């Protein structure tokens, strides 16, 4: 069964006006459970627009997006909020941790609103931060902060993880470690992980690659034997 299915998904800004912009143009694809998916594209390709639609942060102009069979394009704000809470685990480029909460508390905060959360401590152990759980974000390195952010995303036990340039703010070595962590989550937890990036190196690890160009889906391929993150020279 598909976790996510997009059918002719379009997003048009300033529709009917002179400066009409077709940010996403009839994009269709399906995502299956436990796959490490990469959405690749240059600046202006429509990555962020797709991310916003997948994350329930914006609504499509036309087309449909199904999550486990439910059409989220028909959702109202409250349902979208519930969708974001239960189905999506979001990982931000700049981590976006609550500065006044410790690593543990940041993860616990996300767990506190979820229906079937995982144990925050176990999740932190899983991302290798058991020893740093009582530190505030400001005392953690970028990579550690991103691990906390990933822990925060998976603790909710979401349907899929949506990662916005998760290595964008990190050095290449740490970035590689983060991708490694994400792929292991995809495989070990059987979670669909969607990474939106412009970094083509990450695409080499993808099991499912969606390449966007000028708002259109240029390439939608399944890769049977992707490279392991450790194999890549970050």
């Amino acid at each position, binding site marked *: 069964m598909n976790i996510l299915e997009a059918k002719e998904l379009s997003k048009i800004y300033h529709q009917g006006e002179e400066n009409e912009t077709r940010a996403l143009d009839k994009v269709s694809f399906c995502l299956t459970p436990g796959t490490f998916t990469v959405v690749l594209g240059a600046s202006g390709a429509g990555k962020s627009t797709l991310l916003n639609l997948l994350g329930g942060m914006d609504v499509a102009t036309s087309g449909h997006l199904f999550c486990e069979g439910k059409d989220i394009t028909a959702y109202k704000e409250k349902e979208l909020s519930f969708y*974001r809470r239960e189905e999506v685990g979001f990982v931000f480029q700049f981590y976006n941790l609550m500065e006044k*909460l410790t690593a543990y508390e940041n993860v616990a905060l996300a767990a*506190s*609103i979820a229906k079937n959360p995982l144990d925050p401590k176990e999740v932190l152990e899983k991302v290798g931060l058991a020893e740093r759980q009582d530190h505030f974000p400001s005392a953690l390195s970028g990579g550690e902060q991103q691990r906390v952010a990933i822990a925060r995303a998976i603790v909710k036990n979401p349907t899929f993880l949506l990662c916005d340039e998760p290595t964008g703010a990190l050095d290449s070595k740490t970035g590689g470690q983060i991708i490694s962590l994400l792929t292991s989550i995809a495989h070990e937890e059987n979670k669909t992980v969607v990474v939106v990036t412009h970094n083509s190196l990450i695409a080499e690890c993808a099991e499912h690659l969606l390449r966007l160009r000028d708002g259109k889906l240029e390439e939608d391929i399944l890769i049977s034997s992707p490279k392991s993150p450790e194999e890549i020279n970050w």
Partner: protein
Amino acid sequence: MKKNSTFALFSKMIYREVKSSWLQFLALFLIGAVAVTLFVGLLSNASTFEYQVSRAYEYGNCADLFLTTYRYQEEEENEIISMLNEKGEMDTRFEILGTASGKNSYLAVHHGLPQISAPYQVEYAEGYQEEEEKYCLVDYSLLEGRNELGTLKLGGELEFELPLATYLEAFSNLDLSAIQNTLQSYLEEYPFLELLLTGMGVDLDDIFSQLAEEGTEIDFSALLSLFDREDFLASGGKNIFRENSLVLPFTITGAMKHPENVQLSAYQMTTILVGDAAMKESLPSLLEENFTGAGLLLSKVLVPIFFNWDISALFLSSNAYLTTPNQYLFTFDNSQNLDTFRGDLQSYFDKNPDNFYSLSLREEMPFAITMENDMQQARQFTFVFPFVFFAVALLIVLTTTGQLVIKSRIAIGTMKAIGIPKRAIYGYFLSIVLGIIFLAILLGEILGPLIVPSILGLKYDLLYSLPARVIIFPTLEALLAAFLFLLIAGVATYLMIRRDVLLSPAESMRPRVPKIKAKKTLLSKKKKTGTYLLSFKMAFRNMRMEWVRSLMTLVGTAGCTMLLVTGFGIEDTIHYGVNHDMTNFYDADFSLTLASGASFNTLTAFLEEIPAVEEVEPYLSLSLPVENVESSYTQEMEVRVPSKREDSTILLPLEEDSCFISQKSARELGVNVGDMISFSLEGKEISLPLTGIYQSFVFHGIILPLSHPALQGSSYSFSNVWVNISSSYSEEEGEEMIEEAFASSETLPSLIVCNSRATYAQTINDIMSSVYVMTNAVKVFAAILAIVSLYNLALLSFKERTRDIATLRVLGFSRREISSSLLWESLSLTFVGVLVGMGLGYPFLIAVLSANQVALVEYLYMIYPWTFLIAFGITFLLSFVVNLILSFRIPKVPMMESLKSVE
């Protein structure tokens, strides 16, 4: 290519910044404008008020020096004139203290029109004009319709009660030979008088032999009883010399504004100006109404002698003036002449003290002393509330700048990175804040003098009789206030932005690093942590980390609560004061004031005849000079003597020998329990010890029962009565019946005032109305302070956390869950602020009321418990509402904010 200057580009940035956040800057502008309007307006009001008073003195050529003697002596007058020797101007008048229309008043009789201390504005009754020498001018305040207290009519009658008893006392000290000699000299001058008296069967030698042995003190009671002779009395007449006072009738020829009558309050003396010609008509008409034949003739001879006036004025259609002056009024061009002359007068009367009563500078006169107090209060008032507003404005400067800095953090880093000097960055922020403050000052300095004196002037018109307002702009103070406001706002802005300007460009572009350390988590491994607990933790740490902002919120809420406690507390204090006095001193349904006195029996018998009346208690209520015997210091105060019938329930229990003084009066007189005081009542000097001090709101002075041993041996007539009515009659019915009874009575004096308990309370409330205006202002200030500062601070907190809010939204947190952290923070700070504010409320209440003392009252400071609850509730509610309003902005925070770069 044309190069744009940094200044021009910054100006554009400033313009766009203000345009985009206009609401926030409008709050700063308005609060600044209100603070300046109030400050400059109140200063202008104080200056305008002072100017009006000085104009009243100037227009009326008010005397700089007042000399009062017991009796006129020609040699003394000549001596004074020679001492004055063109150093200044002099005018004279006969002045006597009495009562007019139930109000203590001075009757000032001038020969011709007054030159010094003269009316500066007169409205003549129909048929009367300026040149008229037969004038009787009363202050506007005594006229019906001009003032709440006024009962007289232009062109109508005025009855001036001259307290004869006090003068008879003085008269008893004169020796017989002085009267005989005076009379003899008149008889020699006007031989027809003796012929007339002899013709009427009056043997003067015989009369004088009845009064006293030659060379001894006159028999006072014999003199009084002389006029009891039936053949002396006119039909329907009585021996008016046995009364407390001579009631002199005058026709009110005009209403005036007089420099000695600037104060209109009920407890303040008013001066009534009468021409000697009017006096020459009034006195004979009174005597003719009561005496006839020899009695009339003799009274016309003896009364002038008694007052040391000119007998001849009452006979032969003489042009002579009747009255002789006992008061000399002086004006001087410079203070040196005044000082020299005052010194000369003092030396003269040190050597000749017998006829000396008092020598006072204008500022030592009662009318000027109270005005000085009022002017001082008007100035003090300037410094109480505007400063609260300035503090609020400063708080808003801090929060506005805080928000500006948060918003411009990256811009600051960028500006530094591209090499813009720090001073230009400071200049950018300072220009925005100071520009807005400057505009606020400009508006405030224009509006303040235009609005505030006019609004307060409406109140002053009820309290004072002053020349028309000429708005004074307090230039120096206004400029100084503007400078200080700009300086303080500038320093506050500088301090707010300094931290960010001093950071390296890279640091500016990174989020601020919290400086708090976490404790080892004690949360159980399995247990799910509550969202609200984590929200609380976040809020608490935010408060610690952003302690400056937390402190500002605390100050804002504490200020709001303090103002609310003060506002409601002032009302509590007045309410408590009124209830306290009504319960302890005024537990009567009605308080009656009669035009003149009547005996206890007559009065009680008359009133008890009225069906509605259940209980009657006549009492004496006199404004008398009371002396602290030990220090010889004398102060005028109300002396109340209830007749204290055994079954009376009207007054607090008074033992037979008790004499109580109010706390305020005790302080003014400098006395304590056990100290001796003395005063003169019905011509009798009374000395007695004080047995207690009581607290009172308005019921000041001295109170002692009629049964007090020191009061025995005299008969008193009462012009005040407390009356309780039967419960089967309504208050209106009771009042109507009492008024009707007095109106139809031919024997009793007329009823001037019939005050019910409600009207009494209303009168106090009217007096306190300026204070009520203040309490409402305080409450409005409090609400503005709370709304503006709490909203601004909550908005600041909100903006600082926009990214967090966006992230939480992306993570699927609901509006309620997100707002809980903001609410926790705000309500926790509000709670602490409210507690601090409640603690500060009482001292601030005392400070505010001390700066706004009303001469008539002594505040019995009181804050009821529910006032604290109300203040607590309102501040909390406002804080909650502000946060609720902000929480509705949460869904509007774009989630894309969370995706934005921070590094």
